[in-house]
């Protein structure tokens, strides 16, 4: 199965998007209210078809199936007579809907992974299985829009939301272009309501959207793409860059994935805000979490909350005893890992995080005893810093699996980290031979400092962009000017650089 086509066009940091978006926004606000959703729908499909026109049929198919499911559920479940049999039919519709959509997801994303592993399993017992090779391109965003649409079906089934009867509005909900290819996975209650009642243009919202987009571009172009050069080089040749090189690379990778994915999410949120839509915040200072549980309430919030609401809680959550709770966590995190990609590394990454949560839960009481014995007080700066550091180390360790290309690669990286002791590279120029010069490193470190500063403010409830927008006009102009210039000068874009490498597009 091929991953994303090399001929991607409409990524956020591409020239085509920079032309597309202003046109969409301008015409959106020029068109009358009745036409606006159709315009957005057309723009969203155009955006998606710029990746691969054929797979628009797929998203349309998913849209029709889930739309009809919603209608049927609404008809059957909430009809006044024969409630139990109608509920039974509603359940069947949900089941079939899940089967179809997850079936498509399985086919496009997991077919070869499944059959390759099945083949290996059968070969262990001497049976040679051959599965037909299917050359299919993974449709971009399929994991995202599938989950978004399925979430809608469940919401309708649960009665959280009424079935959407306007097909075009529903189609826009599934395909809304800012969040179509890499999230956030929106909840029907949030997005559908806003699509039904579009907000008029306001200057402040426009500026806020621009600021969010600029922040996203800063994260992606200045930080994430710069780190990628170092990480690709070191992880790609771990025998030449052992030990501390890989430690540095793994630390940097944690910022790469945060800024790549977080950057995309912020650009998506900013673009949506300009169009009058509030998308959920997908990341809230994740690396300032004090435990792994908190990390998963701050990281990829749309996905973790989706799994919580549509899988973990239906499985029983933490209501059926500790053993069941831990089992549920393993299932949820294992599937969350699998959602990220058809590779054992992702599954292990997910399971490792699940295990961390279990261990964290098991150690809760012993920790409290230890704290009281040692006179350690909660919510003190030192304690918090220690917790944040330990949590970060654990999460960063799990990123090794996420980044490695396979289990063997991950093992080699871990082995090298723990067996090769070469911290002297931090004090000589060795780090500057890994694709980034000293100056590039300086810009990177400086940018990461800015990122952490903003994250600290966010954690304290201070949204820097709102503070900027509250200032006088010329101060705002300076901020915008400096931001744009900084991104254009220090960002990795233009010739010699491929703009299509948002990490999460492969999911």
């Amino acid at each position, binding site marked *: 199965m091929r991953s994303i086509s090399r001929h991607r066009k409409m990524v956020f940091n591409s020239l085509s998007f920079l032309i597309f978006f202003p046109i969409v926004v301008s015409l959106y606000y020029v068109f009358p209210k009745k036409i606006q959703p159709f315009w957005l729908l057309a723009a969203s499909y155009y955006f998606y078809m710029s990746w691969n026109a054929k797979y628009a049929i797929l998203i349309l198919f998913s849209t029709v199936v889930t739309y009809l499911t919603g209608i049927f559920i609404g008809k059957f479940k909430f009809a006044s007579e024969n409630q139990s049999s109608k509920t039974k039919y509603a359940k069947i519709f949900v089941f079939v809907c899940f089967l179809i959509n997850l079936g498509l997801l399985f086919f496009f994303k997991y077919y070869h992974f499944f059959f390759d592993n099945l083949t290996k399993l059968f070969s262990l017992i001497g049976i040679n299985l051959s599965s037909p090779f299917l050359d299919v391109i993974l449709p971009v965003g399929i994991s995202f829009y599938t989950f978004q649409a399925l979430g809608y079906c469940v919401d309708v089934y649960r009665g959280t939301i009424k079935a959407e009867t306007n097909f075009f509005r529903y189609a826009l909900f599934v395909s809304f272009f800012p969040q179509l290819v890499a999230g956030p996975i929106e909840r029907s209650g949030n997005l559908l309501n806003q699509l039904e009642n579009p907000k008029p243009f306001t200057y402040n919202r426009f500026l806020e959207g621009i600021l969010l987009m600029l922040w996203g571009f800063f994260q992606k172009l200045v930080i994430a793409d710069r780190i990628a050069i170092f990480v690709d080089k070191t992880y790609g040749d771990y025998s030449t860059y052992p030990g501390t090189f890989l430690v540095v690379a793994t630390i940097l990778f944690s910022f790469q994935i945060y800024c790549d994915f977080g950057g995309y999410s912020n650009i998506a949120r900013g673009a949506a805000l300009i169009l009058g839509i509030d998308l959920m915040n997908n990341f809230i200072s994740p690396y300032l979490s004090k435990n792994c549980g908190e990390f998963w309430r701050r990281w990829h919030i749309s996905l973790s909350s989706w799994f919580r609401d549509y899988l973990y809680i239906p499985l029983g959550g933490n209501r059926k005893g500790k053993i069941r709770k831990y089992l549920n966590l393993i299932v949820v995190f294992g599937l969350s890992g699998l959602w990220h990609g058809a590779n054992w590394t992702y599954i292990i990454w997910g399971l490792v995080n699940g295990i961390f949560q279990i261990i964290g839960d098991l150690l809760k009481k012993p920790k409290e005893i230890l704290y009281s014995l040692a006179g350690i007080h909660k919510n003190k700066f030192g304690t918090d810093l220690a917790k944040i550091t330990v949590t970060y180390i654990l999460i960063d360790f799990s990123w090794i699996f996420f980044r490695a290309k396979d289990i063997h690669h991950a093992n080699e990286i871990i082995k090298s980290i723990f067996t090769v002791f070469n911290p002297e590279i931090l004090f000589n120029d060795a780090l500057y031979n890994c694709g980034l010069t000293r100056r590039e490193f300086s810009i990177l470190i400086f940018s990461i400092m800015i990122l952490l500063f903003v994250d600290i403010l966010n954690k304290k409830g201070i949204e820097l962009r709102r503070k900027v927008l509250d200032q006088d006009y010329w101060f705002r102009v300076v901020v915008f*000017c400096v931001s744009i210039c900084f991104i*254009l000068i220090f960002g990795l874009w233009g010739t010699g650089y491929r703009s299509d490498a948002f990490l999460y597009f492969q999911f």
Partner: protein
Amino acid sequence: MKKPFMKKLLRFTSAFLITLFLLSMIAWTLSPKSWYHKMNDFYDYPEDYDVWFLGSSHVIMGTLPEELYNEYGIRSYNLAAYGQTFAIDYWVTKNLFEITKPKLIVLDAAQTGYDGKYQTSNISSIKLMMSSLPFGKEKIKAINDLFDSESDKDLKTELLFPFASDHYNWEYLTKSNFHSNVSYELGSDQNVFDQRGKSNYLLVTPTIIPEAIDVEDADMTETVNSNYLRKIIELCSDNNVEVLIVKCPLNAAKDKLQKYNQAFAIGKEYGVPYLNGFELENVFDGDTDMWDSSHLNSLGARKWTHELGKYISENYTQIETSTTSPTMKKRWDDRYENYLKFLDSELPLQTFFYSYLMLCTNQRYELDIVIRDGSHVLNDKVAMKLINSCSANIARADKNSKKPDISITVRIKNGDIIDQAVYSFSSKTVNSYTRN
């Protein structure tokens, strides 16, 4: 409600313009100024140049507009670049015709046999020339025509939108990003002065220059560049600009000579004359005139420039050799003065013996040379040829004296001493010895 909206619109527009201005300042700072070094004089006073020289490295190194002006009063500019093909020559010509037109274009035949629009080994040079062209319809056409394959996409983006690659220059900012480096060579590059002091880098490479073959003995296989040669000739004809096709001498195999003859034959189809450097007798000396086997050094370039000037002044009487206005004359005289100062300041920085001697052959200088009897210099054919090419008073010192092998005092004729150099040789291979 119109006033607040207008106020906001005005503010937004002013902020946008300020950002744009700031970005353009940054873009200018980050842009490499190498094209300015080559083209500054041309764009400052495009009407000053009656003759344009176009071609590749053979021309950029072998044709000296300042010497041409000094000797013949011909006002010219060297628009050649390293690896520049006829395809690029065509588009450079077409673009510059939007600004001004010369009376004569001199085309070097070197690239006739090359079957590609541009040489991938000379991308930086191509970028330099293309970057120097003013942005407009013709430049876009040029870029689209020259770089039309999928693999050229990045290069095309860079040329159409230089900031896409220039912005990475923040890491390499130097003084030249803030102050443009001016050249005094009117587009030529004797490729001497930047290389001074580099080990084993000689400006004199004894080379065999072959004799001319019969001009009818031509390889008429059409190539991309032979087609563009035709296009240049037709373009010039449409714009009433004369054309001359030339070839400076170098070490070339027969197949190359046959391709040069193709260029002459193509010119003949259009009634365009040619000057074949290989046909010139008793002019060039392969021992002393070559920078390497393919390029003339400063001495060879002066000789070739002299021949070009002689040909042009005899055959193109419409090329004015006297300036039309006092201001233009002053500009040219100032340029030449600056050029001479440039030569005089660079000469003392030359270290290798052959290179030093070769530069001293400039008839501007008068030398006092003392050679110690028994010195290896006396047995070195090339060194003695170079010494004899200089305007020099040669004296001998006693073999047993403690004087160095050779001491050279260089003064500007009827002027000051600008340098003194002394060499001692412990072996007979004297070419790359550095001064004491």
